[in-house]
């Protein structure tokens, strides 16, 4: 990041000369690059910075001077309202400023020292008697938090529940253990805001090779879910009858979602501990199953005409558990262990 500064000063200098806003433009560009850093390919940071600084300079010229942002807030009738781009840029900028403001002073200090002033983790660690590794981990958490706060500020919303921020943070930091502790996938089913924000948060990381996520809302999704499970298993080198048993069980639990809940999803995940296997978690936001014990008894389903298919799915898999809460939904977790590969 620090290496960008001389280049940015050159670009700004060439366009605005000794304009009093020159240094502000450089700093503003850095703030934007910083906020977008994790969404940009490493090799693209420089071009991104160049594009950003050019846009900022252009916006400044168009608006006349750097007071543009403030005049904008006052709805000055002389303000050129047709410059959509500058409005968007202004909103992004104030979201970044606000997000930075929501960090603790210490978080902000360390982040800016590292990203803008180019201090390395070692020297930052020495300063506080910490270790470089701990500082790096802290920076990672801070960036994750900045991304979450940036998105919230951009949408101008406060999360509706206490769970939202922790869930978003776990997604932003790609902390799978924490995501599991918080049952993040279920929260995303239940919370529209987090579901919406999860897309940009998850979109940045590389797509996971060992996990598939299939949203379930209608018939064709049942087929999609069971095919996804089979494909993941085949890719992992599994073969044989177990593939069919797995696909059939996924079909049953996915159908439950379509039939008894408005929406849900199926997550299929490769396991390697304590042995190779596949875990399937089917979650829905349906009415819940009043008597899980009975739903698992053979014959119950046909007698009641419910056709839950749960006893069958349980027999097809090696492990099976179900949690259902009335009015909130049902989560079925099941695992198939594969002893032999290939």
């Amino acid at each position: 990041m620090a290496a960008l500064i001389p280049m940015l000063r050159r670009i700004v200098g060439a366009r605005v000369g000794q304009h009093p806003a020159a240094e502000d433009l450089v700093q503003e560009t850095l703030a934007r690059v910083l906020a977008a850093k994790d969404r940009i390919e490493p090799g693209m940071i420089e071009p991104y910075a160049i594009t950003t600084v050019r846009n900022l300079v252009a916006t400044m010229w168009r608006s006349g001077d750097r007071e543009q942002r403030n005049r904008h807030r006052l709805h000055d009738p002389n303000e050129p309202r047709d410059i959509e781009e500058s409005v968007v840029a202004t909103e992004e900028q104030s979201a970044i400023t606000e997000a930075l403001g929501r960090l603790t002073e210490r978080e902000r200090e360390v982040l800016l020292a590292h990203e803008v002033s180019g201090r390395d983790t070692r020297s930052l660690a020495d300063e506080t008697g910490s270790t470089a590794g701990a500082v790096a981990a802290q920076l990672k958490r801070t960036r994750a938090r900045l991304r979450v706060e940036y998105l919230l500020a951009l949408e101008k919303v406060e999360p509706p529940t206490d769970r939202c921020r922790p869930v978003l943070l776990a997604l932003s930091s790609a902390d799978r253990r924490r995501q599991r502790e918080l049952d993040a996938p279920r929260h995303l089913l239940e919370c529209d805001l987090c579901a919406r924000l999860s897309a940009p948060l998850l979109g940045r990381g590389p797509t996971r090779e060992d996990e598939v996520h299939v949203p379930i809302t209608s018939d064709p999704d049942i087929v999609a879910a069971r095919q996804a499970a089979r494909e993941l298993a085949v890719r992992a080198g599994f073969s044989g009858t177990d593939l069919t048993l797995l696909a059939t069980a996924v079909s049953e639990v996915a159908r439950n979602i379509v039939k008894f809940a408005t929406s849900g999803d199926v997550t299929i995940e490769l396991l390697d501990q304590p042995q190779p296997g596949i875990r399937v978690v089917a979650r829905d936001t349906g009415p819940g199953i009043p008597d899980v014990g009975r739903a698992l008894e053979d014959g119950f389903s046909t007698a009641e005409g419910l056709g839950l298919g749960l006893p069958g799915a349980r027999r097809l898999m090696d492990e099976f558990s179900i949690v259902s809460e009335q009015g909130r939904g049902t989560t079925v977790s099941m695992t198939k262990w594969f002893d032999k590969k290939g």
Partner: protein
Amino acid sequence: MSTGPALVSILRQGDTLVASIHTALDDSEMIRFQNDLVHQIGEHRARGVIIDVAALDVLDSFGSRTLRTIADMARLRGATTVIVGIQPDVAYAMVQLGMGRVGAHTALDLEEGLAYLSSMRNGRHKAAP
């Protein structure tokens, strides 16, 4: 069954209908297949129905139940149903699911299915359960 590559086909051969499922069907497509087939059984006064499911890699509870419904309805119309081509893995999964009885005779492949139907016609077998 209207646009794109056919998901299923139903061919008539004398008084026998040969229905093949060419790809995985979702539940609505399965129901449409059932309705089409039952309709054609009536229309053509079919005496024998062969359903070829060799292309299916899964026959879950819904698929199995639909086959059973087709066989039941065919029987009520005086036709015998033979289901052919159930893959060994699929058969095993159906049994585990508790859907082992499809309510129709089963045969390894189309040829065996046709042979069964003709032997039925010649009175060498009793009707399937």
